[in-house]
């Protein structure tokens, strides 16, 4: 009886395995194969081994894009989670405004990255909102062509990403705060531990799992960022905001270098998997030591 039951149960997996296998695993495997051909997307393709990958080594656009992608991710991960933690710990200490403000902070998360990028493309424009605001408060000297200057473009794009997802980081930290054992916090308060001291020796260690989740999520998310640089700068100026995803998109659908684009997507996959699994296992190790 139990044997038949288990067989029926295993059959529940079939629809998922079929859809996931055909539309995820098979394309993944085919992508790895295509990256070792000279395919143009048509039926004719010759196996060329590692030729596409070797071509990348001589392509400064690729090394630049890789660097931009990693730098962008580092800025987003650090600033977004730093701000999220700051907001969460302040909100935790203020129960009256906690719920309202955390919902307000989450609002940017709801909109599409495309829409966020639209809004900010105007805010960053030379005569747009930010420069006008700086004029208004008398800081005219700080006015800047934010997206048009190679030294600020990447950080400006990252700022939009941070604006959108800080509320998300904050919500995760706050959820972790809310699950802290009340007795421990009360005991700390009775012992006179307050402010910074309480944060360092009690809250920070208890936040370790939330930090792991936050860092891993924001790292994966920012490594595969696409809509922000696409809409805001389309890789410019002078390639200063070209990321791996933009390069993949341009090569695959721009015509002519299909297999090269696919090979770039494999590089993206390796980057994401290596960096995210290394980071999350490091952070998990840290969790266990605390």
């Amino acid at each position: 009886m139990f044997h038949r039951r288990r067989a029926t149960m295993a059959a529940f997996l079939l629809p998922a395995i079929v859809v996931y296998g055909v539309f995820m695993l098979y394309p993944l495997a085919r992508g790895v194969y295509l990256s070792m051909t000279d395919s143009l997307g048509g039926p004719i393709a010759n196996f060329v081994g590692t030729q596409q990958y070797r071509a990348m080594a001589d392509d400064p656009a690729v090394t630049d894009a890789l660097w931009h992608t990693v730098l962008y991710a580092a800025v987003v991960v650090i600033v977004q989670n730093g701000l999220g933690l700051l907001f969460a710990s302040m909100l935790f200490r203020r129960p009256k405004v906690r719920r309202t403000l955390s919902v307000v902070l989450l609002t940017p998360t709801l909109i599409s990255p495309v829409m966020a990028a639209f809004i900010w493309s105007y805010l960053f424009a030379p005569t747009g909102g930010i420069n006008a605001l700086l004029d208004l408060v008398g800081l005219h000297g700080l006015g800047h062509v934010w997206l048009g200057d190679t030294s600020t473009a990447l950080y400006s794009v990252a700022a939009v990403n941070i604006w959108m997802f800080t509320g998300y980081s904050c919500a995760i930290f706050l959820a972790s705060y809310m699950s802290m054992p009340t007795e421990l916090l009360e005991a700390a308060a009775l012992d006179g531990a307050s402010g910074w001291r309480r944060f360092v020796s009690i809250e920070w260690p208890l936040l370790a799992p939330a930090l792991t989740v936050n860092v891993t999520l924001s790292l994966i998310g920012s490594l595969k960022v696409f809509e922000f640089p696409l809409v805001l700068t389309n890789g410019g100026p002078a390639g200063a905001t070209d990321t791996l995803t933009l390069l993949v998109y341009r090569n695959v659908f721009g015509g002519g270098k299909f297999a090269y684009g696919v090979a770039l997507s494999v590089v993206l996959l390796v980057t994401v998997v290596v960096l995210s699994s290394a980071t999350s296992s490091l952070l998990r190790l840290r969790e266990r030591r605390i």
Partner: protein
Amino acid sequence: MTSDITAPDAPSVSGTRPATRLPAGGTTSRAPGNPLRRLAGGLGTALLCLGTLLFVLPFLFTVVTSLRTAADVARSPLGIPHSLTLKNFSDAFSQIHYGPSTLNTLLITGLSCLAVTVIGSLAAYPLARITQHWSTAVYRLFILGTSVPVFVVVAPLYLLMRDLNLLDTYTGVVLIYIALNLPVAVFFYTSFIRSIPADLEEAAALDGCGAFRTFFTIILPLLRPVTSTLLTFVSLQIWNDLLVPLVFLQNPDKRTVMVNAYSFIDPHTVQPTSLFPAALLGVVPLLIIFVFFQRQVVAGMSAGAVKS
């Protein structure tokens, strides 16, 4: 939104957790008798409100600018609006074919969400209950999908869809969304079902209940809270996605809101008075849903961070 999420470790975090519980720790540090400390606390609250305001300011600015005339905005981008108009909205409405494209987006999002929850919960049941080598391997294979960016599969998927004659069809797009979101659903549901004691199911099995009946009468009703959390997350992903419809739906009649807004509006030449209404129209349906399901949305977004 980041297209990854971690599953709740226990059923308690997914909507059933009492969000209203106020820990004593939040208030005890502010002794009422200490004016200096109270001043510092008040200052902190003020700073906090100011910081939060900075995050919504771009929103408020977008709404106000959307309601102004182009000439008025050109004169002073941050000035007080002299006259308000709804004309920008009606222009954007027709420019991005808002009605039809919203219906397209709704259809795609709805079908994908339905399929993801059905297929995902079915698959999660054996993965949670059968503990053998093969099932662990299958589970790992699904979880692998949570860190695979769409870009890695977009080119081979394009070829596959072309070969299957599924380019320019809703079926094709929905199938892609199911495959992309199944890892999250499987992760969510499996960890949730694992936290449900198996006693009830064993009793049902002894009474002669088959796997089908057990799943539909015992497991499925318990999955409701985690499903609402998952749906919030998945529908946000699909509604806001640009890449999949951009690549796989070429027919203008089938395009989604995001694609229309993206292809009709060039942010570098177009006025904010036509840019902003379009941006707002694209998010209005989601904001309405958010108002209704506020608690689930917040729970859904923060699910998984809490280890109990």
